[in-house]
């Protein structure tokens, strides 16, 4: 699965996207955040402020409880500031 990062999450992780293969027990967005945080200090730092970022699965806004099974792309980003 592809994981994408935007804005300051991208800067903190140090890359805009990566291909990952999480273990089978990683079932939700929340699980993926926890698993990615265990992969490197940069990920852990980026995800340390869990209240200030959101996620999308295959370009649709998701919650932390959303299952990721079958997802080809999961994105993490700060709150939107368009307009």
């Amino acid at each position, binding site marked *: 699965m592809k994981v994408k990062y935007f804005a300051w999450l991208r800067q903190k992780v140090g890359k805009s996207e990566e291909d990952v293969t999480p273990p089978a027990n990683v079932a939700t967005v929340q699980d993926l955040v926890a698993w990615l945080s265990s992969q490197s200090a940069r990920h852990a730092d980026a995800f340390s402020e869990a209240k200030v970022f959101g996620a999308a699965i295959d370009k649709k806004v998701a919650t932390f409880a959303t299952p990721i099974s079958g997802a080809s792309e999961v994105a993490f980003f700060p709150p*939107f500031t368009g*307009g």
Partner: protein
Amino acid sequence: MSVRVQREDFDVGAELAALGAGNRRVGAITSFVGLVRDLHVREGYHRESVSALTLEHYPGMTETAIEEIEAEANARWPLEASLIIHRYGRLEPGDRIVLVAVASPHREAAFEACHFLIDWLKTKAPFWKVEDTSKGEQWVGAHEADDLATKKWER
């Protein structure tokens, strides 16, 4: 209904003239143009001067998200035409960021739909802004006022 996400500037006059052109049911066109300003505003106070604003977005999701917002506006108000142009990339104070324009038989619907569209664009379309300020690079955070403006239209 039309959505454009682009790096280039746009011509407000030409876009408004083209909106609903030839459609005799159109009695009102309203528009909103968002510009880059030269002051970083946080919690209502002007703090640092801004020399540039860079907009990042999520290609593929951005267009879909804006189209959904536009469809919602069309479901709520009798619109004959609507246009949203949102720029990305590096912009400087005075540059245009966004154009929202709607055409309707009636002015109330046109005003309300335009207001709704820009309020929802602020919080429901995947854009992020980073400012070059006198104190360095600063990501623009979500504003409580924008969240309240979004909620105002919720049903």
